[in-house]
């Protein structure tokens, strides 16, 4: 076991967990932040996407004890679920089952934070690694356009 120190959603968290535990499982099982989802465990579905210092990161592929930056999860993206991306998601009725949507929203929010007016290729490059079995991609595209226009 190792003592792991993380700054998550603005709070300093110190807890004992196995060395090298993936950030995903540290967040979910040790810190109770279950908004970040397991989907594949090998970094290709994007359901576990969080921000580390504002950049999208696959939390299943990052060891918690190696993270030095500030971690933001879907629970910390905004105080009241009113981040422009979250608002755009509601306006476009994006979610179906909802399971992949935290990863979709975190990926889109990181994209827009770095590229406020992304072109189509930039949107596709950012979003094509986040899988949705329900098939909400068309609405995700519209929602990103809406959020980009509003921010």
């Amino acid at each position, binding site marked *: 076991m190792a003592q792991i120190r993380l700054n998550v959603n603005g709070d300093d968290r110190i807890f004992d967990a196995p060395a090298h535990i993936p950030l995903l499982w540290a967040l979910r099982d040790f810190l109770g932040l279950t908004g970040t989802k397991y989907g594949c465990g090998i970094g290709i579905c994007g359901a576990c996407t969080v921000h580390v210092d504002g950049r999208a990161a696959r939390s299943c592929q990052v060891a918690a004890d190696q993270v030095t930056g500030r971690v933001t999860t879907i*629970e910390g993206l905004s105080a009241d679920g009113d981040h422009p991306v979250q608002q755009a998601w509601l306006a476009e009725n994006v979610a179906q089952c909802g*399971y992949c949507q935290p990863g979709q929203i975190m990926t889109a929010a990181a994209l827009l934070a770095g590229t406020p007016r992304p072109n189509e290729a930039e949107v596709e490059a950012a979003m094509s690694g986040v899988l949705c079995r329900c098939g909400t991609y*068309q609405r995700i595209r519209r929602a990103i356009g809406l959020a980009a226009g509003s921010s």
Partner: protein
Amino acid sequence: MTTGMTRREFISVSSMVGGGLLVTVYLAGCSASETVMTTMMAGTRTTTTLPPPTTIGPPETTPTTQAETTTTTYPGDPNATIRPSIYVLIDGTGGVTVTAFRAEMGQGIRTAIAMIIAEELDAEWNRVRVEQAPADPAFGDQVTGGSLSVSDHYQLLRRVGAAARQVLVAAAAGAWEVDPAECRTEPGVVVHPGGDLRLTYGELVTAGIDAEAPRVDRVEPWKDPAQFRIIGTPTPLCDAPEHGRGATVYTNDITLPGMRYAVIARCPTFGGRFLEYDRAAALAVQGVTDVVEVGPGVAVVADHTWAALQGRDALAVEWDLGVLADTTDEGIRQELADRTRATGSGLIGATYSIPYFAHAALEPVCAVADVQPGGCEVWTATQDPQGARDVARRAAGLPGESVVVHTPLVGGKFGRGHYHEAVEEAVRLSQITGAPIKVFWTREDDLRHDRYHPMSLYQATAPASGSARPTIQVNSAGSPIPTGAWRSVQNFPTAFARESLIDEVAAANGIDPVDLRLQLMDADARRVIERAAAESGWGSSLPGGRARGIAYHATFGVTHVAEVVEVSLEDGRIRVHRVVCAVDCGTVVNPDTVRAQMEGGIVFGLTAALKDGISIEHGAVVQSNFDDYRLLPFDEMPEVEVHFVGTSKPPTGVGEMGVPPVAPAVANAVFALTGMRLRSLPLRV
């Protein structure tokens, strides 16, 4: 009314206390279900307050009711509620809580149930909340499948709303000493026949309604569909706000005090079981608490998921691969091919090949169980809560009434939720370890131990002259590996075979594929085919390198869907640019949901058409994760348009209906583009 009593006979105003009002309503029939009311108290429940619809017709002209009612005070119980039936509760603030009794997987059933009840209850939509029912036979069949949840319950839910409204109207009429038949309602308010007195639903409940509600089956819907203000209005899913905040609690997000986490080493082959494993190595992983044999597998139980996963790796299980160790999908396909019949003279025939497909919901299989002496609670993403309860009951050796199955929201499932292996595993492990247990399936577990859409050969034949639709012969019996319901079930391969062969017949006879379908099909089919063709610009020129294809299918024979696709080839791969969908699903309860289900069904069908099947080698599934069982990604999403071909018949279902036409439409478009006829899925040029 069929009770033999007039409404007036049910009603008396029993007392007036301190200037207040106590209304007593006596209505014939059954009261609220104790079963439901008690089970609803236990365990997790998902409760959602509905956001306002995106549009709700003309602005409500109803003034707030406060002005009309301030002359009377209502000192009744502010915490009072009434439950006119097991499906609906109304509280003293006028809030309405609807109980959803079918599984929400993103298809919008929770929202649809609320919309239909609220319409006939004449509720204020933004005061409606949705609760999720546990497994409970009081709700009858709770299996979510066949796209039936709206179509099977449309009239029932209208009656539920109408019956609840009847209680409130009767209460108000009793207070006013008028005939309830002369009262009317506006959203959330009963209005006196004279129009000058109003009582809100909340005021009526607060005042106290000592009532037995009318039997739901004896109340007729009262609203003319032309007056619907909720049904037919695009309405956001009630769960959307929680989804957007990451606040939705799926099965894998549930934590119980003292709960442990289990993963199971599963034999890669179907029918194999463990021989040897290194128990000590697994127990040596910090956090691992138990190693338990569960059926043919070995479970590692730990304090957290990561320890369980590491412990499983350490087991180094040696497997008896069992009797299917030599099974391959090619061998299965050959067995099926050997049954193929010759095509008779005067006929055109072809055989279409479908591989195994996995469900691959983003939420993997998962269950939580807490077995206590004499009782058991289970949480699982299920499409069949009562089936899950039966599995838990048998696994625990407990009577059914002592097993409570809670139904968290389902992260997709597409048919996988009919099967409950994880429930059995969690119950057994909880029983053995004495702790609440969460059984977690990894993506690899989920893909390699699915109940697959069956590999099949569909043989289609049709008169060579093009004078009749193709008939289908299915060769799919006796799969050695587990198969199960997969979104749209046999409709998917049937549509692929029939709608491909129609195009083959059209080509052989030099007839336009749309024209041939219009010649062969009935009026219901023609309406959607004509609409999809018109909206897609069928027959008009396309940019170079693109071509169109069409297909039509009536899934389960009830919902008519035609889809026109535009394809091109990019680096030898099929690229779908646009899908124009026309759907006739009868009455459209939630237009936004119908669109979403068509969009999602098209993506589901395109994934099957263009990505990967499940293949079998050495008795085991070859694919293991999303790198080799690929889902259609964002950058391959075509532009999808959905057009309603409106009919006023009752709703017919939409959850699966978008899926079947798209694969044959793509194959037909590839033929139009290249002259190549692709008869095997996934489609490869």
